[in-house]
């Protein structure tokens, strides 16, 4: 009897140890995966920065040269004015693309001006009313700044493309060591339960979770969309 008891106890202990070992390995895997995800996002960011520089310094410089030449010609021969205008638009588009790809304003000036710039760039020309209210207590570390900026960018571009909103609000606030970003629009919204996650939405969620941030979507058909990101500093 006792020997059977002892046997059982030993067995239970072994199972417990095995479970602990499995749990430890699982946790380790999770940490590894998260680190991998983080590395991938960081790599993507530096790849974008490289492309952006090439675009700006390569095509951008060529177009600058072309634009100047056409400007010179157009000042004597007005029939070339249209060509000059087209070249100038192409130059402006390349610059815009390069800046959206890698916002140097984030490195140069920080998160607040970068978000204001983003809103202005996306909405001013579209005639969309927007408010961008940002309250930060100090400098935000680069990793979190990039995360907040990219999530905001994705959310705002989505709002612009799909929501048909005429008013968009961006709030960024800091409470102690937590940053909270809210992006709210008054557009067509969607059904959170029944939506098939698009690439944009999934990638926002992936990105947030890679950096230990929490991202939530609140939306209902015809009642706008509210996206909230919270991230610890």
């Amino acid at each position: 009897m006792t020997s059977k008891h002892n046997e059982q106890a030993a067995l239970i202990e072994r199972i417990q140890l095995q479970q602990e070992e499995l749990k430890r390995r699982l946790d380790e895997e999770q940490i590894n995966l998260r680190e991998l995800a983080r590395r991938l996002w960081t790599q993507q960011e530096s790849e974008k920065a490289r492309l952006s520089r090439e675009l700006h310094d390569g095509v951008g410089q060529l177009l600058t040269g072309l634009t100047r030449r056409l400007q010179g010609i157009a000042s004597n021969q007005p029939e070339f004015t249209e060509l000059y205008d087209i070249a100038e638009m192409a130059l402006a588009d390349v610059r815009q693309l390069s800046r959206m790809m890698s916002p140097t304003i984030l490195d140069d000036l920080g998160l607040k001006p970068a978000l204001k710039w983003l809103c202005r760039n996306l909405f001013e020309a579209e005639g969309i009313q927007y408010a961008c209210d940002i309250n930060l207590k100090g400098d935000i570390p680069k990793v979190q700044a990039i995360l907040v900026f990219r999530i905001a960018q994705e959310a705002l571009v989505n709002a612009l493309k799909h929501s048909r909103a005429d008013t968009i609000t961006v709030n960024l606030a800091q409470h102690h060591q937590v940053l909270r970003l809210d992006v709210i629009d008054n557009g067509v919204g969607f059904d959170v339960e029944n939506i098939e996650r698009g690439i944009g939405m999934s990638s926002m969620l992936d990105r947030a979770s890679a950096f230990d941030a929490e991202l939530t979507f609140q939306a209902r058909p015809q009642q706008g969309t509210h996206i909230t990101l919270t991230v610890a500093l």
Partner: protein
Amino acid sequence: MTIKIVLADDHVLMRQGLSQVLNADAGIDVIGECGDGVELIELVIRLKPDVVVMDISMPRMSGLVAIDKLLAQRPDCKILVLSMHNELEYIEAMQDAGAKGYVLKESSSDVLIDAIRSIYHGRTAFIAAHQRNDTGKPARVSPVAALTRREREVFFLVAAGNTSKQIAELLTMSLKTAENHRSNIYKKLNVSSSAELIRLAGKAGLLE
């Protein structure tokens, strides 16, 4: 009396070119050059230049932080920012940080030298937004033609980067009046921000 300049830009070719252009002017002497913000602060403390001409994007210490530290060390330091960015946010951020002027890298050397002279004499020199190195192309129709005399004054002050509050002070009017003028101008010119107004003014060749 020559104006003593310290020049900071991490692009060596750009810096050498600038240095040559500036030294070619009899009234200007480049007394020091450097390629990052940390060196810049050392140089300014050691050489006591009249005007600092600096880029924003530099290694080791960003331009914004460098301006902050420079002004903490020498509050009377006159800083002219030389940048490739023509966005409103850049100009505002540099103005808020305490720079006295902002000129685009693509501007002609005359524009740069004028800006240096202006801020040396205690004025400000904020120029911006889609300004071209005009080869003398006439403005198609001057946008200010539709404005009243008072609105034109306000227009040029807005284009020079002044806030409504500064305009109110400069023209001795109430803030409310300055803002009214501003919104009337925006309506008449069909623009919705000072950036657009500056861009319009730049395109019409009104910024110089």
